[in-house]
């Protein structure tokens, strides 16, 4: 017996849950006050947006909504490291990254509020809409990466998937093709330890999700998903490598879902005692705040000012969302094809007629 291949998976954490650096070798941005504050702000914003969306759903003003509570460092970390010209291919719990790349809170609310216009991103024109069918987005990211490669551009693609989603064939097919085609794609696994009610203990026998990359021959790293500095640092390195034509990377960011799966879920049915208490101690926002305080760049006053400011932004987005009139019935047809077939055109007219009749009543 001879050994023909060897592999190992490395784990990175820079800031522990008490806000203390766990190493001397921090990335440069970890000492830059503005960067830290903007990361902090972004995480707080998503936290508030999710809370608000939840409340809206409970009062019948919002559809099913998947909060990212506890996982803000993941989306903010890899989303904030993207350049404008890069492409984001999100998943349904991807609002943290999406907003970092230019999607507006209002668009997020519109989407989950049952309005397709929420995917007509006004700024992030090239980003993919949310893919609800799990893992399918990984292949779209590979395809975008292939196009970028064919066009000889220096851009990269980032896509996010839940740890449970890695059990789908599409995830594997995507990392495999990204490997063999050396695509500029970065796959981020949001390991929040739950796939609705299914914990990792019954999802896969792997000790890490990062190691799934070995099946595709691509590089992988596991990071503390509650440490926004670790996530962002890993993302920056992976993007630089991708843009330089050196291929794909898989990043597993380990966190914990501190909320229900969605507003339609009740995690009390399956979540073990005490998990939340432990989880809240490790959550990303407080940790970064402590770290910033230890650097002397953040005060109680800053905190109050920020949360007030964000509250107003979120409220503004909610107001705009609530003020948005529903689309006209014909919009059910107007984006099916560039040109609607005659037969469907009749149905369009009929739908308009019905709506008018209703209106008349």
């Amino acid at each position: 017996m001879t050994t023909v291949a060897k592999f190992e998976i490395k784990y990175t954490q820079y800031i522990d849950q008490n806000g203390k650096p766990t190493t001397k070798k921090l990335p440069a941005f970890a000492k830059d006050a503005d960067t830290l504050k903007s990361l902090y702000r972004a995480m707080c914003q998503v936290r508030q947006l999710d809370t608000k969306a939840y409340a809206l759903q409970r009062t019948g003003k919002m559809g099913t909504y998947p909060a990212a509570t506890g996982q803000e460092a993941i989306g903010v970390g890899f989303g904030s490291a993207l350049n404008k010209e890069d492409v984001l291919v999100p998943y349904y719990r991807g609002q943290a990254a999406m907003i970092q790349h230019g999607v507006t809170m209002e668009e997020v609310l519109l989407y989950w509020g049952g309005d397709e216009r929420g995917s007509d991103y006004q700024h992030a024109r090239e980003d993919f809409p949310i893919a609800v069918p799990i893992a399918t987005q990984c292949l779209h990211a590979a395809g975008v990466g292939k196009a970028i490669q064919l066009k000889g551009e220096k851009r990269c693609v980032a896509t996010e998937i839940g740890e449970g989603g890695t059990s789908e064939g599409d995830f594997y097919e995507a990392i495999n093709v990204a490997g063999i085609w050396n695509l500029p794609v970065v796959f981020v696994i949001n390991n929040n330890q739950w796939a609705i009610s299914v914990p990792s203990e019954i999802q896969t026998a792997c000790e890490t999700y990062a190691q799934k990359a070995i099946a595709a021959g691509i590089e992988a790293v596991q990071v503390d998903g509650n440490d926004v500095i670790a996530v962002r640092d890993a993302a920056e390195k992976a993007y630089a490598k991708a843009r330089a034509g050196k291929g794909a990377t898989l990043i597993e960011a380990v966190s914990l879902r501190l909320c229900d799966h969605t507003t339609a879920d009740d995690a009390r049915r399956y979540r073990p005692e005490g998990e939340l208490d432990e989880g809240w101690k490790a959550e990303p926002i407080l940790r970064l705040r402590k770290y910033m305080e230890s650097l002397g760049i953040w005060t109680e006053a800053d905190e109050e000012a920020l949360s007030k400011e964000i509250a107003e932004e979120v409220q503004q987005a909610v107001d705009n969302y609530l003020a948005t009139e529903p689309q006209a019935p014909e919009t059910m047809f107007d984006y099916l094809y560039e040109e609607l077939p005659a037969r469907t055109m009749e149905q369009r007219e009929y739908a308009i007629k019905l709506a008018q009749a209703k209106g008349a009543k």
Partner: protein
Amino acid sequence: MPAVTLIEAVNMALSHEMERDSTVVALGEDIGTNGGVFRATDGLIKKFGKERVIDTPLAESMIAGVSIGMAAQGIKPVAEIQFMGFIFPAADQIICHMARMRHRTRGRITLPMVMRAPFGGGIHAPEHHSESTEALFAHIPGLKVVIPSNPSRAYGLMLAAIRDPDPVIFLEPKRVYRIVKHEVEDNGEEYPLGCCFVDREGTDLTLISWGAMLHETHMAAEQLAKEGISAEVIDVATVSPLDIDTILESVEKTGRALIVQESPKAGGLGSEIAAEIAEKRVFSLLAPIGRVAGYDTVMPYYRLEKQYMPTVDRILEQARKIVEYK
């Protein structure tokens, strides 16, 4: 007798059959501890343990393929696909294997198994949670596709599906999971697969539907009665293989047919029913065959879903047209 909802009836049937037949095993995403996102399997894991109520990894092709392997070895899987919109990763296993194993092996390997999935619109769900794609599977020889329309049928048809010697796709109209209750005795009595049910007798017009739309269809029939129009209402129930004879008989009697379906019109099940009538009873017809259906476009997100789905008014409008047709 307990009054139960459709989803409770499904749960009752599963529980009854797992009690009676120790080879029956339930599997799917979140069906164990969580009891399924709609609670179809609520309590089963407590009763039967995690050997027989299996929370699977997140992979539909796996759920289908593994069920095929289990069924071949004498275990009777009742697999849940969380929403019908997520059945497509399993399409290859369903179409190329589930439907064919008996045929391929000349009867050596058979696949008694059920694949359950909630389907249809009207519950304000996100994209891919509201479609009705039963026609896709109804076109595949070797499959049986069953759709209960109310609690009693859900109970009886589910029992029949589990006991059937061949694979059954069991589609549950989630919009009506909880809107009506029936007194259903948990007596293990099944309803026959492969036959339509004449829900209401009539003489002027035959209304043909299945699943959730049957509720609008019945309301329409009520209203028509008030207007002096006597509508016969047929619940297709097993959409494949189709019990066309019951439908033909009715149309022969009434001379008028209106099919009501939630799915897009083009290539829907209603087209098959209309085609059969047009082939076998065309000269019994006193009016064109009507189809009230979802539009031939993508199911809209929920703010517009009411505009997409057939309504009682749309059924009435068509029904009157057909009855008044000269």
